[in-house]
């Protein structure tokens, strides 16, 4: 609905207010950029030329492209059967499979990495099982710390994106087309290849390019598993800035990374535009049918088993490991709360407090910026910026933002918590904006007109009508930002704040010093806190 039209002088004021609100939100992205790219100007083009001539730059770009491509293909292979099952079939466990759609947003990548270590790692559950059953001397599974580990983690983490996007479209493809093909004598395979998949193509292209983009800018998973195999630009930026302390190289890599990401975002935006273009089937959901025939049942069971192992294995391993403790010097294992006790004895309470403060600050900044931008853009009635906002966090990498904000807001003995909150909010506010924007869009123009005729000024309408009606949407966005902040190890590793480490950083450090069981305990706490926020968010969006 349109916002109420105001008189001309008021329009100018409102437009100015809208621009200001949008600019404040954009500042989260724009302010750190001089910080991130600043060193380039100090040393002239020397650092840039040095970086461009460095073979490591190109090998990391090549590695990033290769692992992203492989990750997307594998995510597509895992996601497509799931999309069909979720969209077209009714069976026990369908809701659970469907709920995995939230994984890429709700589960922090560090937790996925830790889960993979606990499940697929040298001393992980799979190797322990195989060594014991087959009586081997050496653990047989050793692909984790290579490009294979990176790709599998990315694919398992991101296949729900394919499932969700392709499934949404698949559920609405009219049955009649397949029936028509059947009546003309086509077999099921021919129908899938000739009728169904071509129609799903836009959704598949859009989902795959999003997985590619996420994998390309992945940081934590590559940092953990990629050490032996290679690194992405994100990890290279981190190494240059924090380990080699070569700010010129970090800034140059940031420039290369941003250019590459912009290019990829352009491709994704084009795919997305095609996906959403009119002419696409916007019909009703087809009713889901039960699994038919032996072949379908066996295939579904096989898929279910593989998916359970890939998703459930790491998750259960983390949970179990958090309760497994080594007792005494004999090295015997037993179940108990020892890992949690040790965690709190070594200051996890402080970490919990810092995590909460950081997450609340991030949620506040992200929700305020997102709401201001949504409100401002609604006053402006602008369309173009909306798209830009949606793609911004994909285009400007967290490493660049982190590099910039830590320079703009320096702290003593490491980055300040405010800098970390700003970094996290820069990544989270477009999501808060999306949620606030959806809530504002649902307010009927007539309701605002009614308020105007009853004597409300614009500011008064914002206070009495706009904000109360959008409150749930804003709360939902804030809870999302909170959940992201709780699980976001990437920006913490990049910014490396001083003082008590937040849970995610504590978990990373514990895992780094091979205290895996305690790391798992920290991971479980983090997951609980994040799920709580996510549950609040789901509650708030359901009630919208």
């Amino acid at each position, binding site marked *: 609905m349109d916002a*109420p*039209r*105001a*008189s*001309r002088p*008021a329009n100018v004021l409102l437009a100015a207010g809208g621009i200001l609100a949008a600019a404040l939100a954009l500042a989260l992205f724009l302010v750190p950029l001089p910080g991130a790219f600043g060193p380039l100007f100090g040393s002239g083009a020397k650092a840039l030329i040095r970086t461009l001539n460095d073979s490591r730059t190109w090998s990391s770009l090549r590695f990033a492209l290769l692992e992203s491509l492989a990750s997307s293909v594998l995510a597509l292979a895992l996601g497509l059967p799931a999309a069909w099952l979720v969209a077209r079939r009714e069976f026990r466990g369908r809701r659970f499979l469907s709920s995995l759609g939230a994984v890429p947003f709700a589960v922090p990548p560090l937790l996925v990495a830790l889960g993979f270590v606990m499940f697929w790692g040298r001393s992980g559950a799979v190797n322990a099982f195989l060594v014991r059953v087959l009586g081997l001397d050496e653990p047989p599974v050793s692909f984790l710390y290579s490009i294979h580990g990176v790709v599998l983690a990315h694919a398992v983490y991101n296949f729900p994106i394919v499932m969700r996007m392709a499934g949404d479209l698949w559920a609405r493809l009219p049955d009649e087309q397949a029936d028509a093909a059947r009546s003309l004598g086509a077999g099921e395979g021919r129908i899938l290849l000739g009728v169904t998949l071509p129609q799903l193509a836009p959704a598949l292209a859009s989902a795959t390019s999003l997985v590619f983009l996420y994998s390309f800018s992945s940081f934590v998973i590559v940092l953990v598993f990629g050490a032996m195999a290679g690194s992405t630009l994100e990890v290279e930026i981190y190494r240059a800035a924090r380990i080699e302390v070569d700010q010129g190289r970090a800034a140059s890599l940031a420039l290369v990374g941003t250019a590459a990401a912009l290019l990829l975002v352009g491709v994704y935006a084009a795919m997305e535009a095609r996906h959403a273009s009119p002419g696409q089937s916007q019909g009703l959901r087809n009713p889901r049918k039960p699994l038919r025939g032996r072949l379908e049942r066996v295939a579904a069971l096989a898929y279910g088993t593989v998916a359970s192992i890939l998703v459930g294995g790491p998750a259960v391993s983390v949970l179990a490991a958090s309760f497994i403790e080594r007792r005494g010097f004999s090295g015997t294992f037993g179940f108990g709360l020892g890992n949690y006790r040790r965690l709190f004895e070594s200051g996890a309470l402080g970490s919990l407090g810092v995590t909460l403060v950081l997450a609340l600050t991030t949620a506040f900044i992200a929700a305020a910026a997102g709401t201001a931008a949504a409100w401002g853009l609604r006053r402006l009635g602008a369309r173009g910026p909306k798209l830009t906002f949606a793609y911004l966090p994909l285009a400007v990498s967290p490493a660049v933002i982190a590099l910039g904000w830590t320079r703009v807001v320096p702290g003593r003995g490491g980055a300040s918590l405010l800098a970390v909150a700003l970094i996290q909010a820069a990544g989270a506010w477009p999501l808060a904006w999306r949620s606030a924007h959806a809530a504002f869009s649902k307010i*009927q123009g*007539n*309701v605002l*007109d*009614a*308020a*105007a*005729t*009853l*004597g*409300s*000024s614009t500011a*008064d309408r914002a206070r*009495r*009508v706009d904000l*109360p*009606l959008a409150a749930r949407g804003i709360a939902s966005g804030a809870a999302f930002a909170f959940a992201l902040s709780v699980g976001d190890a990437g920006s913490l590793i990049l910014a490396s704040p001083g003082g008590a480490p937040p849970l995610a950083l504590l978990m990373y450090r514990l895992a780094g010093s091979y205290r895996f069981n305690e790391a798992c305990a920290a991971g479980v706490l983090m997951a609980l806190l994040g799920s709580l926020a996510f549950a609040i968010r789901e509650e708030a969006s359901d009630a919208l």
Partner: protein
Amino acid sequence: MRCEARSLRKDWPSLTVIFDAAVEDGRSLAILGPSGCGKSTALRLVAGLERPDSGRLLLGGSDATDKPARERGLGVVFQDFALFPHLSVVDNVAYGLAVRGLSRADRRSKAEALLARLGLEGFGRREVASLSGGERQRVALARALAIDPAAVLLDEPLSSLDPELRKRLRSELRDLQRREGFTMLAVTHDIEEAFLLGDEVALMDGGRVVQLGAPEALWLAPADAGVARFLGRGTVLPALAFEPAPAGLVHARTALGVLACREPVARDEAARYGVLVAADALVPVPATGSADGSAALRGRVVRADFAGSLTRLELETEGGARFRAELKGRDASPGETLAFAAQPDACLLVPERAGS
């Protein structure tokens, strides 16, 4: 309060709306017209929700053209009622009072009293989502009345309700307007509703008011053929030629034959005219011919729509021309030949609108 629109103009890409109408204090005006004729724009111009490109709006004699909507003090009832979904019934009604800075106790008591007057006693704490269509309409009206409005504007206030409720509520609304004595402007596309709600009716077409007058005046003396067609009182046929006739009458040659019409006060020889043959004024006569010598229209029934107290007929003459007539009760069936006397009061000479 008296409310007068003087050539309030709004240019849309596909339509220019020019609204000229006045409603006296305590009276009601229905703005009637087909969809897309600009009637809602006219109401939004008066409400201040659209900014006019030119023209003036006078409220109680003072110029309110440049006042924003919130300063006009007009109560508006929207088509879908536009109740605030996050507020209770009483808080919806009290909204305008809260904006005006009344204390919580004062606005509550005033809102509760108003709800009681509109038959919504005890509804105050209810959520608006729990209300029926009719209840919502009354809450929206109470909200508009709470601010002691200079006038109440209603945009298709009954169109989202089912027909039964609609009929009941429009009578209730009219009674309420008379009882409370507020000035009212109501937009509708329903002729019956407009006639019932308005002391006067402004009929709009193509963005302009084409006739403004009491409902009876519009019905009995439509300003032009377009108005006559829209009101649907009968068949409008082109007048092909005029023939000499006794004083006060004019004989018009039409596809139905020569019809005796009352001579309009001023007939423009250059203009084109139509003849409205009023279906409700045709008198059935034996098929052999009329007794008093007035023109008899004879035709075969091609369509008979039973509508309860009367049957609406469409007939076709031997020459192939069609006309409409009405019969009390159910007394005709397709294929039957019937005749009707067309007395001068049943045949109205109406000018065709220029350019139509």
